[in-house]
């Protein structure tokens, strides 16, 4: 029986995608399922060879009812994710608008400013955190030296040790290191907006703000939506910034879900328990992703501007 051209195309597409499917199963699905299996056991790092015993939902119950759960969840959702992602989206948009403006072009600074913007993004997170730790250092840090020199403070501030400054300091590092990606992506999106639309709006009497609000922003929304989703997932799951900046301290003040996983797995050696936290994180992110697409209606938005 001869296959129709469509059926042949589908079979060809299946075989071309099959290697990718295998890679996804091997490197994503299998570890996820294995992690899920571990989360129902009491396995420790000392028992990796012997394996652990099934404890049902005990790890989940212990984590979700632990006294520190609320603080860890608050730190992760509010400080690490909501505040830093909002700031980098806002700053990224501002930078993109500035770089796309006639003002920067008029100064012949377009290339230089775009290159400068890429420097923080090209800096590996580990290097960025180490550099900022030196900048924040109470004894030798440039920030304290500058603040002391200008008379804004009388005594050096231990930015990464004081309760009032530690979270803003971490957010500063994250925003500095990751905003350029947002800005560059939004800049690319800005350059796809037909100039005629803004010209027509201007002829119709729209102010600069109205042009931005009703022409530019709708065009950028699909990009902003995708960047927002990706930024939330990257930041929510991020371990490096908090761990290298403060080690989750002072005390447990900056402990987040990712650092809690590390502490439980590699300090307490409780692999089963930390696997349960990992599953909770994955579920939260999956739910967030589903709700995000539902509320932002990415495809609808593309239809609107397309």
């Amino acid at each position, binding site marked *: 029986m001869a296959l129709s051209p469509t059926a042949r195309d589908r079979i060809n597409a299946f075989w071309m995608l099959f290697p990718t499917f295998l890679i996804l199963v091997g490197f994503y699905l299998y570890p996820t399922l294995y992690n899920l299996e571990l989360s129902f056991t009491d396995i420790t790092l000392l028992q990796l060879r012997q394996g652990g015993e099934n404890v049902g939902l005990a790890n989940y119950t212990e984590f979700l009812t632990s006294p520190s759960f609320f603080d860890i969840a608050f730190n992760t959702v509010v400080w690490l994710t909501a505040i830093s992602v909002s700031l980098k989206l806002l700053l990224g948009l501002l930078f993109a608008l500035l770089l796309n403006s006639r003002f920067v072009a008029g100064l012949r600074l377009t290339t230089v400013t775009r290159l400068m913007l890429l420097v923080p993004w090209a800096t590996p997170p580990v290097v960025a955190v180490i550099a900022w730790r030196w900048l924040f250092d*109470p004894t030798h840090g440039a920030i304290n030296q500058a603040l002391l020199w200008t008379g804004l403070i009388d005594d050096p501030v*231990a930015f990464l040790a004081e*309760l009032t400054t530690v979270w803003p300091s971490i957010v500063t590092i994250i925003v500095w290191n990751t905003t350029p990606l947002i800005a560059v992506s939004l800049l690319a999106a800005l350059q796809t907006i037909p100039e005629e639309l803004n010209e027509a709006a201007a002829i119709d009497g729209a102010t600069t703000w109205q042009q931005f609000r009703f022409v530019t922003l709708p065009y950028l929304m699909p990009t902003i939506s995708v960047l927002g989703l990706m930024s939330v997932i990257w930041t929510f799951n991020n371990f490096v910034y908090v761990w290298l900046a403060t080690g989750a301290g002072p005390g447990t003040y900056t402990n987040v879900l990712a650092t809690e996983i590390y502490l439980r797995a*590699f300090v307490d050696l409780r692999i089963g328990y930390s696997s349960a936290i990992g599953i909770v994180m994955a579920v939260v992110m999956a739910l967030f992703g589903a709700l995000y697409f539902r509320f932002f209606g990415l495809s609808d938005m593309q239809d609107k501007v397309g």
Partner: protein
Amino acid sequence: MRKFLILTSAAGALLAASAAFADVELTFRFNDGEREEMRAALDAFEADNPGITVELQTIAWGDSREQFLREGAVGQGPDVVHIAFVWTQEMAEAGIVMPIDEMTQYGEFANGFDDFIATDLTMYDGRAWGVPWSADTWAMVYRTDVLAEAGVEAMPETWDELLAASRTVAAETGKTGFAFPAADQVWFPFNYYLWSNGLTLVEEDGAGGYQPGVSIEELAAALDYFGTYINEELVPRSVLAIEVPHDPALLQALLDGSQAMAVMPTNTYRQLLSAFEEANPGAEVPFASGAMMGGSEGPQTHLGGRTLVVNSNTDHPAEAWQLLQYLTEAGLFETYYTNQFPAQRTLLSQIEYRSEELGFADQLANHTRTWGAYAESGAGVGQLWNLTARSVGSALSGQVTSTEAAEQLLVEIERVLDN
């Protein structure tokens, strides 16, 4: 054709023979700062043992425990590994290190295994699983000229006297008296405070189990003691972010004379002395060491140190043991690994201490104890360490009150003891 076959056979035989006598490549994981010195020591070992080459591998101490546990579980890892005393039992329990009685078939130690100190920490299931390598403890370090400037004539001997001396230094000179790392390694001075007051985080319960050896009020009082230094601004608040006694901020303050007193391990003190002498050639060394503070009981610090273990996954146990024996010889400590004390009674008795180091010698010989119940309870020193350091950090930073921090710490200790 016949010639070709003969030549081919000869070449094959030569290859087989060379494979049989091929170099043995060992990997030695060593995590201290003396990397260059250790490489020189390994070069000397390779010169004396043709056919054995040793790759020196280093990772951060903070990651080394779980790294080796992970590697060992999947049949990987270095052949000889440098670990902390208190990890040996865990490694044995995980089945990733070789028992010593199986290794001695490859050679005995010059003074026997019994000459090593703290061998109790290497015992698991009735067998020894590691060789104590270096011994250390913490002691007090004084900048004598700063104390003289402040008019402090006698070295403090109790925690209360230490606080009083710090207040005097601050009042008379405007400098820092006693400063300590208030994150992570605050674990050490915090335990010394408890021990010297007859308390302990974990003790035997008399029925074969273990229980906390301190009450909420006693823990809160200990937290308040260290908090006083911060609340009265006797130390900069930046100590809250300092994790280790060799943090540049602490060492620099001692070197430039803006701090009078500190607590640190032997190797850090030796590095401090070297740094001062390098920066001030020919100048009188204004440092002295002394025993740790006492409380209601005498001063007590931990008998710490490092163990060498052989990975149970090694393909070359004989050569690994040969390397391990070399690393415990007197010459290594005399020539290369000079910042550390050997963990052998015979070698310890032969050490000639500098006058500035006498406090460390006294502390090590007379005022140390092992982690004992901490390690034997199964709670794990690493876990107790993390919990305690975080509770101290929470209280000292003002995240919670000292009583709340004490309550949380006791709950956590009971939890890990139950587990």
